[in-house]
Structures are given as structure tokens and as C-alpha cells.
């Protein structure tokens, strides 16, 4: 076995506009440079290969989330207290409070409601003719379903929610103009969450109202409420929007595979995983190294910040055969790290799957072909996703 002692360096900037719009070539270069690469522009280590991303995610003691999962220490200080940004035992406690509503068993009672919603949306869009994959399809779903289950009051507008979530996720990246533009929005979101933490403001019997009443009964510390309510809202928006718009783009551009799904519904779960793998909505989060540790034969020192690039791991040719090819039959596709992995693995993944599967089912029973135009891509620090894409559904 050869051991490399020096960590390769690179001037690749994954947060530059060019890299955000077309990230996969830069990811490949980072993977080829080594298992760990020093990013000169941001003074952090990038981990771009599958094996090392997986290993880091499964060693949460060394690769800690407690001091934040964003790129800069300044912004990390502002994002404490959620499941994302905590370590056990506190992490397991707050995650449990969110997970009790989001685990597969708990979601069973909502299957009919979500499938019904999906069927109505697809019917409307068939009726409409040409529409936008992002604003008319992908945003409609997370905006309608999650806030409703959380207990969003009917008299409060939801139009700001997407902007808040976008601002929140930009702030996991560098302190650039994109992040700074979001600061006023973050303030608004935080005020809103404070207001929703007051008993009586969320719809009775909702997930959120239960958290608020648990706090009133002394089962949860009250100061945790805004963060816990936020755990349902911020991470469920742009991630889902990205996955659902990529879904139309990928299936529209692979009509042969769309025909196979229409002929055999049992392909839907694998197809949804393959969509998350090849266009991973969350590009990457960081961890702070708490003790000396080898990763891929290279030594990381305590206090190093490492950027785990999920979107790159999911296209690592060391792990996947033909990673740049969309293939709904891909063996082992469920091993992707598009929902993360390990103790911070996405707590909303069952809900995302339910959303994605319901929409695929509604489409496959009604739509013969998905005609698409040219996509444009979003400029966002941590989300990979389509900005707009014209689509027509033919029955």
C-alpha cells in the first residue's frame, strides 16, 4: 500500500458561478487529485470521493456537526441548535422530536392525502398545456404539503417561505453576495418562527402545535421551539424542489426509461433514488474534525473543517459504473449519499420519497410523454437545481 503524506491543493472554487452552473467536471478533478484536497480559496479540505464521504459520515465523533455544517465559522455560529448542527446526545433528542412525525410508519396515515394531491396537480398541469417545471410543478408540492402538516395558519401567506429557505441554505456556503443578500430574509424567518412558537398560533392538532404544547407541558425546553419548527420548513423546500424538477427533466430526456416506468410501477422507487443520485439536490455540508484521523490514507488534524461533497460522491467512478449515465435499473442505487448517511441522514427522506413516488405514480398512469425544453440552472451556494424548464405533458 502506498501512503501519501501531503494533501494535494487546488484552486478550484466550488462556490464560483461557473462551478455552480456546471459542477461535475470540477468534482471529477477534485476526486482525481486525491481522497482529501485542500481548497485554497476557502481554506477547507474537500472530500469528493464516495468511500471517504461515507466513512466520514459514519464517524460522527471525529467528524462533528456540533459547531455547524456550513463553510464559514462566522455563519456557523449563527446556526446552532437544530438537528443538523448538533452532536449526540443532544442531537438524538431533538432529532427524535422531529422524526416521530416523519418516519415511514407515522406517514402511513397521509398516503391517501398526498397521493390525492399529486393526482390533482398532474390533472391540472395536463389541462394547462405548457408549464414551468419549477414554479408550477416542483414548488407546488413542498409548499402545499409540509406547511399544512406543520400547522401553518391559513391567514399567513406562504409566498416568503421559499425565499427564507433559499436564504437559509445559501448561508451554509461562503459569506459571498448570495449569502449576504439573504440576511434580511433570515431575520424575517426567525421572527416568524418565534411567533409560531407562541401557543395558539399554529393550527390545533398539527405537528407544530404538538411541539408547542409539549413545550408548554415542560417536555421540551421552550427556547428550542423555533429551531425545531425550522427543521421541518427550511430543509424541506429547495431540496424537494430540486429533486422534483430534475425528475421531469431526466424523465423527459430519457423517454425509453419513462416508457418502462409506465409499463411497470415497481420501478418507481429505484427511479427516484437514481434522480437523487445523479442530480443530488444538496451539494455538500461540512464537519469539524475533533481528533487526528486518517481519511483515505491522509492525516487530518484536529480543528480542520472538511467539506463533504455528496453530489460528487454520487458520481464517483471508483464506486459507480458509468456514473454520468441516468439508469433507473442501476444496481445498488439506494447506497447514494444524496440524503446524507449516518446519524444525520435526512430525517425527511420518507416524506420526500412519498412525495416523489406519489407524483411519479400520478404521472405514469396519465402521461404518455413528457416534452421538455432547455433547462437553466440556479445560482445557489449549496443547492443544485433547475431554475426553469418548460414542460408539456402529453396523454
Amino acid at each position, binding site marked *: 500500500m502506498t501512503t501519501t503524506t501531503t494533501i494535494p491543493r487546488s484552486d478550484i472554487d466550488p462556490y464560483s458561478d461557473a462551478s455552480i452552473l456546471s459542477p461535475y467536471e470540477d468534482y471529477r478533478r477534485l476526486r482525481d487529485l486525491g481522497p482529501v484536497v485542500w481548497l485554497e480559496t476557502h481554506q477547507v479540505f474537500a472530500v469528493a470521493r464516495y468511500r471517504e464521504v461515507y466513512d466520514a459520515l459514519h464517524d460522527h465523533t471525529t467528524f462533528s456537526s456540533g459547531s455547524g455544517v456550513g463553510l464559514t465559522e462566522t455563519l456557523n455560529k449563527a446556526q446552532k441548535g437544530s438537528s443538523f448542527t448538533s452532536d449526540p446526545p443532544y442531537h438524538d433528542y431533538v432529532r427524535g422530536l422531529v422524526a416521530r412525525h*416523519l418516519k415511514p410508519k407515522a406517514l402511513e396515515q397521509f398516503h391517501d392525502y398526498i397521493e390525492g394531491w399529486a393526482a390533482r396537480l398532474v390533472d391540472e398541469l395536463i389541462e394547462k398545456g405548457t408549464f414551468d417545471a419549477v414554479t408550477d410543478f416542483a414548488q407546488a408540492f413542498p409548499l402545499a404539503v409540509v406547511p399544512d402538516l406543520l400547522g401553518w395558519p391559513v391567514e399567513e401567506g406562504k409566498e416568503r417561505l421559499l425565499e427564507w429557505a433559499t436564504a437559509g441554505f445559501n448561508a451554509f456556503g461562503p459569506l459571498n453576495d448570495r449569502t449576504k443578500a439573504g440576511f434580511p430574509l433570515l431575520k424575517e424567518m426567525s421572527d416568524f418562527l418565534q411567533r409560531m412558537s407562541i401557543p395558539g398560533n399554529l393550527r390545533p392538532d398539527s405537528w407544530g402545535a404538538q411541539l408547542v404544547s409539549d413545550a408548554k407541558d415542560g417536555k421540551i425546553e421552550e427556547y428550542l421551539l423555533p429551531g425545531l419548527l425550522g427543521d421541518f420548513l427550511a430543509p424541506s423546500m429547495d431540496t424537494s424542489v430540486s429533486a422534483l424538477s430534475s425528475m421531469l427533466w431526466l424523465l423527459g430526456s430519457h423517454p425509453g426509461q419513462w416508457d418502462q416506468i409506465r409499463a411497470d410501477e415497481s420501478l418507481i422507487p429505484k427511479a427516484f433514488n437514481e434522480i437523487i443520485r445523479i442530480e443530488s439536490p444538496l451539494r455538500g455540508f461540512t464537519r469539524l474534525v475533533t481528533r487526528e484521523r486518517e481519511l483515505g490514507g491522509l492525516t487530518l488534524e484536529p480543528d480542520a473543517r472538511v467539506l463533504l461533497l455528496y453530489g460528487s460522491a454520487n458520481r464517483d467512478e471508483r464506486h459507480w459504473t458509468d456514473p454520468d449515465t441516468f439508469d433507473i435499473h442501476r444496481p445498488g442505487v*439506494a*447506497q447514494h449519499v444524496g*440524503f446524507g448517511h449516518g*446519524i444525520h*441522514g*435526512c430525517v425527511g427522506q420518507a416524506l420526500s420519497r412519498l412525495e416523489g413516488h406519489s407524483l411519479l405514480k400520478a404521472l405514469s398512469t396519465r402521461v404518455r410523454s413528457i416534452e421538455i425544453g432547455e433547462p437553466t440552472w440556479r445560482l445557489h451556494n449549496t443547492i443544485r437545481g433547475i431554475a426553469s424548464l418548460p414542460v408539456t405533458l402529453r396523454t
Partner: protein
Amino acid sequence: MKLVVDRSRCEGHGLCEAVAPDLLRVDDGFATPVHDGDVPADQQDAAHSAVEMCPIAALRTA
């Protein structure tokens, strides 16, 4: 070798059962190892795959 489910972490995502149906059952929202978690000699690879597959690290071998 034994398969152990951490009941405080398991959320019942069922990915373990999908790769090792002879070793685990997801019932009532939790994974339960069959035969008390004892893994037969010819199922060791399946047990490791199940551990690797659990998306939230709720499963381990002992």
C-alpha cells in the same frame, strides 16, 4: 456474529430488510433481527450489506 438494532435510532426506513430479508423484519416501524440477531455463516455478507445500507446508522454487527 450478531446483528444489533439500536431501537432509539431506528426509524423504520426498511432499507436493511430490502438487502437482507432473511435477517431482518421491519414491523410496527422498527427493524427486528430474526433468530435473535444470530447471523448464519452463509449470510455474513448480507449482514454487512444491511449495516452499510441503513441510512441513519441504526444497525451494527457485534
